[in-house]
């Protein structure tokens, strides 16, 4: 019969547990604690909720002011474009898909990491996702909103955008259901809807948390508003039962959805007969690229947010390292796809394909092509080194270059294939105008306006989910303090579960009774 304390419950002090370094650091990333700092449940509530409750900091106002400026630029760019038509952009024969589609695909791709973190990692029981999924899902929603603005205004007559929807109209006509562009309308709008549902369902318990805190603090207006949005959630186990099942199903539904969305986006290109676009590799290659750029954006945002909001114990360096591993893997997958495209162009012996790819690497847009190769394939390779994976400045730099590289990927695909048309007399060199640039810059304003509002008003970390992965969330954790019945077979699940928490620093235990302080204050070990 073994006595369990948080020091040895996860096999940390020799015996049959996971090996540890002399200084107590866990040996593998999988053993790393999900929450650091020996926090109690209330500490987690406090750390996250306080940012929605405190007085708005000056820094937030400054950032929000900058974001609103960007939003104003967006409004001007869109108004000018709507008034004058898409001719204000740099589009001309033969390049009629320029920055608009590049930016659309880029933003949609960024959004995909949020769904990947919330749904795919959930299905794979990657419990480290709990610290980052809320912010990543918010990023998805806002990125999809930014993405949708480009095709919306690219149609030229935005006031009849409803033609893309199957709404009975005076012409008795229906949308062209055989077109990938229409599939896009369905895929992206449904993706946005399902992401919103998933995000909101995840939010309900946390909104109830800040509702109850507002009620305790006597802020009745705030409590009523939050009471409306938290739907009267009580945390009843009879509710959790349906809630968890619904959440699992939503994760199961969102997973094929996210794969289908970027596949459909790639069909916009792949279903055409343009050399360089007409390839079957596009769906998986686009999905990998989407995950790649999305994780980079999550790293960019989280590196800043965890430091500004002082939640480094919830979003630990281990979380960032895991994301950097995914960036390394997907970046290499994308780089492999670039090389495969070249091989297939040669192997197909189709001269148009061969020309398209030679032109990509050595033609007028070679600068864009090699920017893409450097940012997407070469730079992420530094993450083979553990020290670099855990270095904040390096990961921040790589996350930025990754998103630059992924923007250039879409630019290269779109523009290089179009600017050399089948007839050399049509050949041209495409450049954006100021209105292309302003609208793109403006979407950053839209994105950061929404993201800053999210950080200010909504718990940015999934409080309930983080509590659920803390070791003391498991009822069996308490057996040593209750009846001392914990023995080998009860301990086994902790010791084999790679996600189980091994507190990196031993839990403080001032009275040396084997019960950590944060447990002792909850329960008397007698």
């Amino acid at each position: 019969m073994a006595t369990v304390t948080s020091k040895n419950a996860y096999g940390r002090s020799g015996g049959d547990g996971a090996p540890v370094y002399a200084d107590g650091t866990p040996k593998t990333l999988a053993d790393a604690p999900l929450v650091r700092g020996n926090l109690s449940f209330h500490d987690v509530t406090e750390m996250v909720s306080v940012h929605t409750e405190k007085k708005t900091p000056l820094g937030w106002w400054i950032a929000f002011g900058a974001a609103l400026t960007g939003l104003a630029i967006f409004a001007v760019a869109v108004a000018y474009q709507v008034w004058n038509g898409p001719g204000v952009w740099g589009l001309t024969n033969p390049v009629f898909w320029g920055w608009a589609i590049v930016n659309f695909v880029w933003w949609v791709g960024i959004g995909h990491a949020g769904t990947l973190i919330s749904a795919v990692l959930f299905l794979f029981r990657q419990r480290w996702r709990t610290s980052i999924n809320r912010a990543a899902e918010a990023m998805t929603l806002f990125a999809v909103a930014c993405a949708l603005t480009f095709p919306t205004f690219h149609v030229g007559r935005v006031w009849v955008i409803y033609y893309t929807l199957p709404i009975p109209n005076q012409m008795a006509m229906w949308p062209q259901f055989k077109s990938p562009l229409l599939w896009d309308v369905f895929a992206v709008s449904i993706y946005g809807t399902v992401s919103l549902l998933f995000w909101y369902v995840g939010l309900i318990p946390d909104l109830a948390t800040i509702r109850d805190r507002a009620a305790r603090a006597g802020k009745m207006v705030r409590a009523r508003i939050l009471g409306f949005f938290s739907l009267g959630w009580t945390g009843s186990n009879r509710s959790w039962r349906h809630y968890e099942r619904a959440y699992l199903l939503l994760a199961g539904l969102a997973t094929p959805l996210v794969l289908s969305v970027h596949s459909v986006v790639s069909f916009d290109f792949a279903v055409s007969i343009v050399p360089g676009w007409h390839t079957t590799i596009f769906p998986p290659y686009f999905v990998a690229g989407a995950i790649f750029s999305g994780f980079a954006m999550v790293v960019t945002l989280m590196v800043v947010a965890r430091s500004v909001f002082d939640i480094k114990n919830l979003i630990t360096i281990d979380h960032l390292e895991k994301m950097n591993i995914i960036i390394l893997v997907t970046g290499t997958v994308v780089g492999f796809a670039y090389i495969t495209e070249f091989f297939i162009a040669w192997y197909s012996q189709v001269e148009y394909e061969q020309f398209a790819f030679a032109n990509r690497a050595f033609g007028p847009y070679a600068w864009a092509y090699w920017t893409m190769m450097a940012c997407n394939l070469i730079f992420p390779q530094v993450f083979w080194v553990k020290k670099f994976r855990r270095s904040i400045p390096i990961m921040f730099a790589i996350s930025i270059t990754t998103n630059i590289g992924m923007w250039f990927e879409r630019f290269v695909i779109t523009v290089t294939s179009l600017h050399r048309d089948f007839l050399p007399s049509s050949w041209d060199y495409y450049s954006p105008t100021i209105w292309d640039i302003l609208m793109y810059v403006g979407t950053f304003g839209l994105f950061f306006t929404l993201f800053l509002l999210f950080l200010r008003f909504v718990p940015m970390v999934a409080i309930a989910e983080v509590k659920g992965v803390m070791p003391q969330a498991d009822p069996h954790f308490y057996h040593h303090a209750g009846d001392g019945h914990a023995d080998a077979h009860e301990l086994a699940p902790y010791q084999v579960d790679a996600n189980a928490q091994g507190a990196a620093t031993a839990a403080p235990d001032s009275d040396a009774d084997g019960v950590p302080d944060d447990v002792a204050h909850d329960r008397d070990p007698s």
Partner: protein
Amino acid sequence: MRLPIPNAIAARLEERSNQHVGLLAEFPDPGALYDAVKGLRERGYTRLDTFSPFPIHGMDRAMGLPVSKIGYLVFFGGITGAFLGWLLQWWTSEVDYPINISNKPLYAFEASVPIIFELTILFSALTAVGAMLALNGLPRPYDPLFYSDRFGRATDDGFFLHVAAADGTFAQDRTTDDLLGLGATAVEYVDHDGATLVGGADLAAPAPNADRAPVPVTPPHTTGDL
């Protein structure tokens, strides 16, 4: 004005509105709560519910709750979405506005797969969320539990067990003793008039928000008098 409601439904609604009338006990941690549920079930209580800031692993089994039926509902939601996705595309191109292009088939299943798929997902997801809310009886702005001041911690770090007064084994004094015997730190009787402490620790016990002045208030998300 009262709507004419059949007696059976009225009784069901009455039962539902009184679902959370009874004894509310606070426990110090998930382990104690888990053991208490087992203890109460051994004593014959059935109308139990627990409240915790996160789902407690194994609690469904301890409470004897079956797996949620949402999966079956979502299956039918998905089938509906797939059928509607197919119907939309087939009917518009084959029946309502057929366009002959090079004598190709008016409708091709292959090209309609993406939209059928997307609509399957959309209807499944809407069903999952709608079914979750419906089965949980949400939104539910009024709940007698909100009268309890300490119950606010159920979404922070409090662990609560509720025994409904409608339970066949329920007797207020004996049930209170049972709850205290199983390790409850405080027991309150909650009904539509409010919450009263009937055993265990006093409300003055240090709450985690002690640094913030405790404001005795009427819970905000209630409709007040019934």
